[in-house]
């Protein structure tokens, strides 16, 4: 099956800086794809190359089989991009802007625009000038603008940055709906819980290179560790056995968290050795590694 996005031997240099360095992977049709990586990893640069906003130094990208350089018209028609920065044209109102944007793509129908305004709760702001909108509303307008031509592939570059909890829920629901309607979604985010909750396939890039590409399940299974959390009756852990001391992840408010190797550490024997030195606990649970843990182990960085 043809991929929604095909990235092949892609390089981009800004002077001496290698922002994208040999990326080579596919984004399958119909997937909900997470593009993760620390600040400056090259995510936005990759998106800009996909959108034709930046030209690659070498390599190629195609969208729905259309090369972004040679078949740029079809490629751009197949792609909707929500840019990372909150940019608006202060000259127009929300609905004027959406009609213009649709027109650039050759779309004349206004029914879809009305529908977009409705779904994104913008109807009562339709005649408001763009520069009078709050940040969250601007974000919604940007999303609507990216969808005016019903693109097959929708790319959202950090759509939930600086967005309040309520709007985030609205956006999640909306993006999930888009995905169910058959759009391929490409999402970048620094909220790894968000990627974990939404995406089915993930790429992690760092320094312009791919460090992981897998389904979410497989990626999570890559974590070699998990966490055993114990609520102790006692705040004294000075007499922990030596072997266990080395596994302590944290000890806060009587909660002891041990990092255990999935393959080697047996929970039963750990608990036995704790009981042996008379450490009692009232409760326990096991926390599987999150995407964040996998991310940190792959990029060596604390924050996505």
């Amino acid at each position, binding site marked *: 099956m043809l991929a929604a996005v095909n990235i092949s031997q892609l390089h981009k240099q800004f002077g001496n800086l290698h922002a994208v360095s040999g990326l080579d992977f596919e984004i399958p049709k119909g997937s909900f794809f997470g593009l993760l990586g620390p600040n400056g990893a090259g995510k936005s640069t990759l998106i800009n190359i996909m*959108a*034709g*906003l*930046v*030209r690659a130094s070498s390599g190629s990208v195609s969208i729905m089989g259309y090369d972004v350089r040679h078949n*740029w*018209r*079809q490629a*751009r*028609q197949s*792609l909707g*991009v929500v*840019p990372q*920065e909150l*940019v*608006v*044209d*202060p*000259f127009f109102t929300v609905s004027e*802007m959406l009609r*213009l*944007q649709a*027109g*650039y*793509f*050759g779309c*004349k129908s206004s029914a879809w625009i009305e529908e977009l305004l409705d779904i994104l709760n913008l109807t009562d702001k339709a005649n408001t000038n763009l520069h009078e909108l709050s940040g969250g509303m601007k974000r919604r307008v940007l999303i609507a*603008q990216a969808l005016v*031509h019903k693109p097959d592939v929708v790319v959202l570059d950090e759509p939930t940055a600086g967005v309040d909890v309520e709007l985030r829920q609205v956006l999640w629901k909306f993006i999930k709906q888009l995905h169910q309607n058959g759009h391929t979604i490409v999402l970048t985010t620094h909220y790894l819980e968000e990627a974990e909750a939404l995406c089915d396939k993930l790429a992690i890039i760092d320094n312009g290179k791919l460090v992981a590409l897998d389904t979410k399940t497989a990626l999570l299974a890559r974590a070699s560790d998990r966490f055993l959390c114990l609520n102790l009756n006692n705040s004294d852990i000075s007499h922990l056995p030596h072997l266990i001391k080395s596994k302590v992840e944290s000890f806060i408010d009587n909660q002891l968290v041990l990092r255990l190797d999935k393959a080697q550490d047996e929970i039963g024997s750990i608990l036995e050795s704790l009981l042996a030195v008379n450490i009692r606990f009232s409760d326990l649970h096991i926390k599987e590694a999150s995407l964040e843990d996998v991310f940190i182990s792959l990029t060596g960085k604390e924050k996505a």
Partner: protein
Amino acid sequence: MNWYGLYTLFGKEVWRFVKVGVQTILTPVITVLLYLLVFGSVLEEHVQVYPGISYIAFLVPGLIMMSVIQNAFSNSSSSLFQSKMTGSIVFMLLPPLSSGEFYLAFVGASVVRGLLVGLGVWVAALLFVTLPIYSFSILLIFAILGSGVLGALGVIASVWADKWDHISAFQNFAILPLTFLSGVFYRIENLPEFWEQLSYYNPFFYMIDGFRYGFFGISEVDVSISLMIVSVFFVVVSLICLWLLHIGYKIRN
């Protein structure tokens, strides 16, 4: 060709200046009225131009053309540069619009603004003088070519500029001197030899001279030569503009 996209972008550019019509059409017309009031009445008795043509009648076509080209420049340059600064230019870069379509939309809107301002100045100048019309098509051709050249220069300037200072430098150090030294206010024949010769290298001179021919049927150089020079200038400036847009100079990077 993405015709509907081109039509939409062109429409947007026209709509933009019509929305602030007081500033984009009325203000230039009033400026010209002031010029007419000051120069026309002060210089009327002192400057000899063509026999049988009053100075103020000579002046008006020059002022019309000057307004046409200045406004054509400021239309494309201010609109495109503002989009570049706010970043909203991405909305025009993401859709399937070619560099040719982009050029046509921006330059086309500049021509419309130029023609509207020119028309406004002409009507306002009726307060002072009623001009004969020797050839309406010559008038139109020069007005369109002149505003086309300046519209394209406006695109070039805004693509190249990194800050507003650069745009005003372009305006104040290139366009303004070239228009003032192009025979808007005088016949270059009356200039000292050196300045007269230099004026023949100023493409703006041919725009003004050819345009004036459209009213009176007389000019300093043969109108077909002016037409040829202005056309070549238009083609050269347009090619540079299209090439910069095509390689995405400073805007697709």
